């Protein structure tokens, strides 16, 4: 995968909320994107909880955030993560972080997943 993949338009994600994507057709959402106005933050849908690494975090399609939309949560054992840094703030994986994915929003508001090494 070394070309950007279009995930959606900005307007497909409710402002402040998150949405899961399966860009490589794996049969489950392998990543999710949080939208804050024109900013997007992408993470691999994989909890860092030791012994459970890689666990899908939503409890229902696209439900990745807490009620106040102020934290990412893992619905497996309740870990809470900072939205901006991906760092675990409470729960079973303190000090560990979600895997950030590089995204791009173009002028037209299309959201792209960038190749992993384009972050640097």
């Amino acid at each position, binding site marked *: 995968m070394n070309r950007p993949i279009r995930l959606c338009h900005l307007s497909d994600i409710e402002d402040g909320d998150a949405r899961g994507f399966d860009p490589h057709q794996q049969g489950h959402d392998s990543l999710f994107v949080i939208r804050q106005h024109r900013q997007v933050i992408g993470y691999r849908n994989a909890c860092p*909880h*030791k*012994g459970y690494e890689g*666990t*899908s*975090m*939503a*409890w*229902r*399609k696209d*439900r990745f955030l*807490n*009620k*106040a939309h102020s934290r990412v*949560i*893992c*619905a*497996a*054992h*309740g*870990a*809470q993560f900072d939205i901006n840094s991906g760092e675990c703030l*409470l*729960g*079973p*994986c*303190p000090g560990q972080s979600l895997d950030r994915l590089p995204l791009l929003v173009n002028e037209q508001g299309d959201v792209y997943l960038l190749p992993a090494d384009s972050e640097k």
Partner: protein
Amino acid sequence: MNITGLDSLVFGVDDVEACNQYLTDYGLIPNNVSAAGGTFTALDGTSVVIRHRDDPELPPALPTGASLRKTIHGVADQATLNAIAEELGKDRDVRRLADGSIEAEDDMGFTLGFQLSCRQPISIPAEKVNAPGDEPGRPVNVIGADESITIVPRTLSHVVYFVPDSKKAEQFYIERLGFRVADRFTNLGPFLRPQGTLDHHTLFLVDTPPEMQGVEHFTFHLGGPTELLLAGKRFQEKGYESFWGPGRHIYGSNWFWYFNSPMGVHVEFDADMDLHDDSWTAREIDASADASQIFNFTLVDKWMPGGDPH
């Protein structure tokens, strides 16, 4: 100690509305549902209780923020309740609540309740099978595959704790409350059965670093494997996220299907668990994929070979 099994699990959650909907969709019967929470009961009256995590009536949360706030065990009679109060009163605070129940912490800090069991006797046939060589399970002309059946969980089965010291946690349940070890995963911990039930386990302890203390999952028993598969399929079709299964465990023999939940614990559908008494010798093995299930499937979309050949 005649402890008969779990009566109720009480959660303090972030999103009350989501949990109310989740447990209703899981198949439990909703009672007194409001923005403050609700009680979700199985056919025999055992339940899961949802409250907001800031509800002042809830026992305090563990330092890890785990959402389970209280585990209520049922007991057979007042004598058992008195015996537990006396035993636990030797070295800890035992509170007597207005409803006649008692409350105390276990050695890991989980808040426990004990009450005269709310579990009502139920009489509903299990899922029945026909097999050559045995008497028919279903009478003639009674069909086995009915997609329209209503599925309500029958009874609260077990809860699984992550504990920072499974040896110490186990000792408390065995020495103070008379639980028996049904089987053991050497590297994780014991499956525990109180004396008032034959069910393989009502409690399973998993040893973890202290920062993980909390709950792995809880589950209710359904009427059989077909019910479990159909209930899980319906749940997944509602959009809920399957975590593991369907499959069948080895220890306990129960069919399983686990889902993520807005309570921040896994919730299992369970059916057909082994029964044991004190003549059973506990088995022991290191937990592994091979040791924990005889098989594990993934639900795929309905499909049919060939289509209509005409």
